[in-house]
């Protein structure tokens, strides 16, 4: 039970983080598209740190078995499909591609998660009643 309570809290934190991640991803894309690369890469650093934090929460839930067949679990899979594109764009130093990935893949994925059903029920897992 205790671990369920803890998982609930983690889910709540992750759900609260999603809008921030989306906003930072969009802002970073905007900076890059404007040609303001200095600010863009600084925002990207913040985004990566936030994503690492997010992934930490997802890892905990995954290890504890709370992610299978849940919306958060699907979000995790989608994010893991986006990360290689971000890495490739960084390695190629392709700021245009990076902006595309951040705006149309990462931010879009997060927006879809937010808008999907009871996106903001605290669990986001669909297995806890409020």
């Amino acid at each position, binding site marked *: 039970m205790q671990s369920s309570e803890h998982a609930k809290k983690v889910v709540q934190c992750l759900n609260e983080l999603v809008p921030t991640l989306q906003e930072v991803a969009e802002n970073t894309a905007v900076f890059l598209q404007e040609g303001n690369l*200095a600010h863009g890469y600084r925002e990207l650093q913040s985004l990566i740190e936030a994503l690492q934090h997010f992934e930490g929460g997802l890892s905990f839930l995954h290890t504890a078995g709370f992610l299978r067949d849940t919306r958060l679990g699907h979000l995790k899979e989608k994010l893991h499909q986006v990360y290689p594109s971000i890495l490739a764009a960084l390695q190629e130093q392709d*700021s245009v591609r990076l902006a595309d990935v951040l705006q149309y893949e990462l931010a879009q994925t997060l927006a879809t998660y937010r808008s999907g059903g009871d996106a903001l029920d605290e669990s986001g897992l669909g297995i806890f009643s409020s």
Partner: protein
Amino acid sequence: MSPVLEFFPAKSGVLTARAVLLDGSSFLLHSAYDPVAEARRLLERHPALKEAGAAVFVGLGLGYHVEEALREMRADAPILVVEKNPDLITRFWKRVSEHPERIEITDREMEIKTFLYRNRDAVRRGFVLVEHPASVRTDPGFYALVRQRVRDYLSLMLTDVATAKVLNRSVQENIFTNLTTVVEDPGIVALKDVFQGRPAVIVAAGPSLNKNVHLLAEAKNRSVIICVGTALKALLAQDLRPDLVVTLDPTEGNYRLFEGAAVKDEYLCYEPQTHYKIPCLFRDRRFAFNSFVSPLSLWLRQLYGDKGYVEPGGSVAIAAFGIACQIGANPIVFIGQDLAYTDGYTHARGTVYEDRKVDLQAANPNLIRAPGIDGSTVVTSRNMHTFLVRFEELFAEHKDRLIIDATEGGALKRGTVVMSFRDAIDRYFTDEFPVLPVIEECHRTHRPDPAVRERVREELEKTVREYGDFIPKLEEILSLASRVQELNDLAENKKGQEATPGFARGTLRALKKKGEELNELLKEVNAQAKLVDLLSLLTFDVQLMPPLAEDAPLAEQLSRVKQVYSLYLEAAKTTRRQMEEAATALRGS
């Protein structure tokens, strides 16, 4: 070599492209999703475009941002695009349907200058430079040069054309009068990275200097103190001694900033076109640097060697920042850098302009509002705002430095950390270190070889002899042009003479013969590119003349020849005299 471009449809349906470099790496030229939305985003960074009088776009790509700009900008605003890929240019011209007559596309540097000068009234109403970052990446060296040239020509052009003509005369006079000094002084390159990781203070002359200049005494020997010429007297009046003083302006007004200043151990960093009375005030405590581009300055630079480039940027504080970066300083702290009319004043106390005020309430189209350091709004001028924009670009390019705005007033400068000068000193000026002894040592060990002076003198004397042969040819051109004009008038019977067929035939033959002689002489003179190019500062008017139509009447062409070559003749005589004097000075030193 240009990268290979691969075109493909974006997800939105319009065309996009990928650039493939020689090393196999590639990058997108435009968004693979929505290039038009991306173009709009790029322009959002330039809100001044809407009201701008003119714009230069560095890099075309597929031109989506240029098309968007055409819709956003004023209907009478001309646009110059600098692009070197002919395929992109062809695709753009095929696609653009609205107002193509407002757009010029070039890859030639001289056409940038011609565009700016020809549209100088529009440029003065407001000018925006827009870079397409992905295009710049296809040839960073070329586009960096383009960017630099736009800025250099713009800062020249911001002065009135009439002033520019007078200025060019002063510039050339100063270049030659300062030549002995420039040849014998070390360049700013001698100071490269000698203060790596040490703090520097750049002292500008804005009104907020009043608040914290007194703290400079604590910064002595804990930082390299670099002051702009305008602030020098304000410092010396309080017995505050900078280490380096920066100047580059050719005018008498600039000399007044130094006249009577009790200079002692300070070192001057100066551009060859600086007013000629300034360098000698510092005895031999000087470093030269090169900022301005003209055929004359480039030619001389090849003779005496590279002194080190410092961006002029239109403001001596920008040059001071460049020097702070070159010496390796970090952090770099600004004081007195308001870039705004704080309390209505233009400058600090103790400067030559201490009493100058601006009416902040006046309906003056030159005044604009900008964010202040404390969230308020400040009043600045269009000129100062141009410098602010350039500063912010420079700060973004120097992410490896901590740049502190300790002005304690004025406009907000993105890319700086704002703090009081007191805090900056307490946090960063913690170690004492020798400054002047290091500068002195660099100066002593980097003096040019005496052979350089000989080389410059010999080349000047050789060129004087070449002008000796050149000038009679210019005189001959003018004489021939007058003769051809007379014959043309006769042939057209302008004087109402009775023209017998024999007379008419004879006149036409003479006209043809003299016309051919004139053409040959014009070709011969124009082929002497070096001698013509070296006159460019004094033949500025020629560049402002609108091009003649190809089918212009002979009388109009001859009138143009006489206008142009009169200018060249006067310029050649002046230049030859100045070269002779400079060569004599080099012989005697």
